[in-house]
C-alpha cells in the first residue's frame, strides 16, 4: 500500500466516523420532548411573551400556566437550568403533567436553558438520552450540558464579568443559566434568557420561585434548600418537616451567600418581590471521581468509586449500594416544593397556592415516576406540547 492510498483510507475512515457522529449529534439536537400538560392548563405561553430578548432564539422556552381562578399567590417552578441534572426537568414536568390548582396560580418552565440540552458536555462522555419506563412504553428525554451550547452562544469572553455586580467568573459561566441572573436584555444567550425569566417573575407578580438542581456528592451544598433571606422561616420549617416526616436522608437549609452573584437564589430575591428557593439533591453522575459513565449510573445513582470516596469521608451525602435512583431524587424535589408551599400557605394565607394531583413522596418511591407521565400518542393533540 502506498502512502497516498494509506492517507486516502485514513481520510475515508475519519470521514465515516464524522458522518456517524454527525448523524447522532443531529438526532440529539432535533429530538422533540413531548409534554402532555394536565387537563387544568390555562395557557401555554413562550418566554418571549414576557421579553423580546429571547424571541426567535433556541431558548424561547414554553411557559405552562395553571391558574385556579381563585385568588391567591403565584409560584414559578424552573427546571432544566443545568440539563446535566435530569431530575430538575423531570420534577418540573411532574407538575406540568399532573397539577390541578385549587387556589392561586402555578407557572412551570420545564427547560429554561433549552440550548444546553441540545448537546452533551464534551469530555464528560455523557449519554445523549435517558429513559423512564411507563405503563404505556418508554419515555425519552435529551441529556445535556451544564451550559448553553457554543453552537448557540459563542464566542465566550476571556473572563465573564457578571451584570450588574461586576464580579469576575470563569469564562464559560456566561453560558450558565445559574450564573447569569438577573440577566440583561442585550447580553449573551443565557443572560437574555434569565432577563426574560425575571420579566416573567416580575410581570406575573410571583411570590415563590423554585429552581430545581442536582449536585455531586463531593459538593458541600448538597441535599439542601438554598434560600434568599426573605424565605428563612418557610425554608427552615420545610426542612424540619421533610427531615422528620418524609426523607430518610435529611434535607438542610442554607442562606444564599450575599457575595456570590448570578445565582437564582440570590438575584431573583434581590430583583423582584418573590422569595427564591433552590433545591439540591445528590447525583453521583456529576462526581469527577465516578466510575464508568453511562445511562445506568445516571438513573440508578449507583457508583462504587463514589462509595469508596464515602468510605474515606470525602462526601457530603451518604451513599450505599442502593445509590441515589432518579425516582428518589425526583420524589425529594417534588415533595420539597409541595412542603414549601404548605408552609408558605400557613404563613401567608392571603397568598396561598394550593395544588392537587401531585404524587406524594411515598407514591413516587412506591410506583416510580413512569405512571405520572402520560402517553403523548394517546392524548388529545391540544394537550401535547414539545420542549
Amino acid at each position: 500500500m502506498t502512502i497516498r492510498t494509506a492517507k486516502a483510507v485514513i481520510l475515508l475512515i475519519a470521514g465515516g466516523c464524522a458522518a456517524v457522529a454527525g448523524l447522532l449529534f443531529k438526532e440529539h439536537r432535533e429530538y422533540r420532548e413531548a409534554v402532555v400538560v394536565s387537563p387544568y392548563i390555562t395557557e401555554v405561553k413562550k418566554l418571549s411573551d414576557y421579553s423580546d430578548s429571547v424571541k426567535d432564539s433556541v431558548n424561547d422556552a414554553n411557559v405552562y400556566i395553571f391558574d385556579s381562578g381563585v385568588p391567591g399567590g403565584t409560584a414559578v417552578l424552573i427546571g432544566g437550568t443545568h440539563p446535566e441534572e435530569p431530575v430538575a426537568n423531570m420534577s418540573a414536568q411532574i407538575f406540568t403533567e399532573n397539577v390541578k390548582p385549587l387556589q392561586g396560580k402555578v407557572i412551570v418552565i420545564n427547560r429554561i436553558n433549552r440550548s444546553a440540552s441540545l448537546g452533551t458536555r464534551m469530555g464528560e462522555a455523557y449519554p445523549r438520552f435517558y429513559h423512564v419506563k411507563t405503563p404505556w412504553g418508554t419515555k425519552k428525554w435529551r441529556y445535556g450540558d451544564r451550559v448553553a451550547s457554543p453552537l448557540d452562544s459563542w464566542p465566550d469572553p476571556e473572563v465573564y464579568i457578571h451584570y450588574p455586580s461586576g464580579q469576575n467568573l470563569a469564562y464559560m459561566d456566561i453560558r450558565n443559566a445559574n450564573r447569569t441572573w438577573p440577566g440583561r436584555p442585550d447580553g449573551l444567550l443565557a443572560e437574555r434568557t434569565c432577563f426574560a425569566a425575571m420579566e416573567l417573575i416580575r410581570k406575573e407578580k410571583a411570590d415563590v420561585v423554585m429552581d430545581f438542581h442536582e449536585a455531586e456528592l463531593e459538593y458541600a451544598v448538597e441535599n439542601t434548600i438554598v434560600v434568599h433571606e426573605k424565605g428563612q422561616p418557610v425554608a427552615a420549617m420545610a426542612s424540619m418537616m421533610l427531615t422528620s416526616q418524609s426523607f430518610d436522608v435529611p434535607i438542610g437549609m442554607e442562606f444564599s451567600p450575599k457575595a456570590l452573584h448570578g445565582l437564582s437564589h440570590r438575584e431573583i430575591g434581590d430583583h423582584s418581590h418573590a422569595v427564591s428557593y433552590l433545591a439540591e439533591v445528590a447525583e453521583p453522575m456529576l462526581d469527577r471521581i465516578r466510575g464508568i459513565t453511562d445511562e445506568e449510573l445516571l438513573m440508578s445513582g449507583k457508583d462504587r468509586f463514589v462509595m469508596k470516596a464515602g468510605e474515606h469521608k470525602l462526601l457530603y451525602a451518604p451513599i450505599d449500594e442502593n445509590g441515589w435512583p432518579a425516582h428518589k431524587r425526583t420524589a425529594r424535589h417534588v415533595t420539597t416544593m409541595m412542603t414549601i408551599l404548605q408552609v408558605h400557605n400557613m404563613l401567608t394565607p392571603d397568598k396561598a397556592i394550593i395544588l392537587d394531583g401531585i404524587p406524594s413522596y411515598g407514591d413516587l418511591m412506591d410506583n416510580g415516576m413512569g405512571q405520572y407521565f402520560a402517553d403523548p400518542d394517546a392524548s388529545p393533540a391540544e394537550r401535547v406540547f414539545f420542549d
Partner: protein
Amino acid sequence: MTMFHHSLLVLMVIVLAFSAGKKFSLTTELSMLAGALAGLAAHMILPKGADPRSPLLLAEAVRHLVEGTFTYFDVCLIFLTATFFMALYKEAGGVAFIVRKIVRTFHSRRFVCLLLLVLVMLAPGAITGSGATAVLTVGSLVGSVLLAMGVEEDRRTALIFLLAAMSAACPPINLWAMMAAAGANMPYVGFAAPLAVLSISGALFSAFWLAGKGKPVDLEKALSDLPEVPEGWNWYRAGFPFLLLAALVGAGRIIPHGFPVLGLPLIFMICALSVLLISPVRPPVFRVATDTVHNLQGLVGIMVVVGALIQIMTLSGVRGLLSLAVVTLPLTVLFFSLWLILPISEGMLQYAVAPLFGVPLIMLFNMKGLDPVISLAAWSVMWPLGDCLPPTAVVGRATVMELGYTGDYFRGFVRTSLVPMAAILLLCSLFMVYSSELSGVIGG
C-alpha cells in the same frame, strides 16, 4: 471482575498502546490516538463489574471519540489565529525592528532589560490566561532579545517557557483557578494577591537565575546577527497592532456590558489585519497562513487527540480511578506529592485537570480546615509548570517551535528549567501548607 479492575485494565491497555506507538516511531499524537482507540475497544470488550451497565453501541462509541476531539476546539482556534498574527508581524519586519531598538537602547543595562522582558512576557498570558498565547505572540521577540544578550539556547528556551507558564498563572486571568472555582461554586475573588505573589516571584527568579549573568553585549555583533528591518518602520507602526490588541482585550474588561464579545480568535485576526494596514511592505499572507497551519499541525493535533483520550478515559472510569487515587491520599502525603502530581497531570490532561483534581481537592482542603483560596492559587501556579511535559507539552512544544530550538528537548531545555521550577514548586507548596496562616496576610 469489579469496576476497579475494569478501569485499571483499560488504563493499562491505554498505556501499552501508547508505548507501542512510540516504540514503532509513531508521533506522540498518533500514539495517543492508538491509546484512545485501544482503550475504547478494551472498555467495550472487558467485563464491567457486578453492577448492571447500559449497552454501548458501536455508533455511540464512535460518537464519543468524535465528540472528545472538539473539547479544546476554542483553544486550537486561539493557537492558530495568535500564531498567524505574530507570523505576519514577523514577516513584515516588525519583530526585527523592536528587537533592534531594545538591543540598541538597553545593551548596557542588563537588569532593566530583563525586567522589561519579564513584563512583556507576563502581559499576554495574564490577560488571556494562556501560556501558549504568550509564547506565540511575544515569545520569538523576547527570545531574539535574549539571543542578542548572549543567553545560550537551552537557558533562553527554558526562560521563555517559564515566563509563559508564569504569565498563564499571573492574575487577573488564571484559567485553572477560575475553572476549579467555578466547579466548586466559589466566586473568583481573593485570588489576585496570592497568584501575583507566586507568579511574579517565579518569573523574576527564573529570569535572573537563567539570564541574570552574562557577558556584556557586543552591540555591533548583536546588531549584525539580527535580520535587517525593511524601510519605513517606526515606533508608531510597530506599536499599533499591540496597542490594538490591548485595547480590544481591555475594552472587554473596562466596559464589559457595553462592548461586544469578540473572542480571542477574532481579536487576533483583527490585529493581523492591522499588520497588513500598517506594514511598509506587503507580507505574503497566503504563504504565512499555510506555514502557520503547517507549523501548528503537531500542537493542534495533540489537543484534538487529548480531548478524545479524556473522553474515553471518562467513559471507561479511568479518569475517576485516577482522581479517586489522588483525593484518597493522606493529607501529609498530598503535601509532599502535589508538587509532582499537579505538573504531571497537567502534561496529561491540560486545563481539564483543574475541574478533575482541583474541585475534589478544594472540597478536601476545605473539609480539613485549610484555606481553599490560597491553596487553589498555589496549585494554579504549579499546574502550568507541567505544560512542558508529555504527552501534551503544549507550551513547551510551542516554545521550541517559536524559537527554532535545536537542542535535546529533555536533556537540554527541560533539564535547564528544573532549578527555577523546583524553586517555584517549593514556594507554592509552602503557601499550600501554611494557607490558613497566609490567608490573613494576603487576603485569601
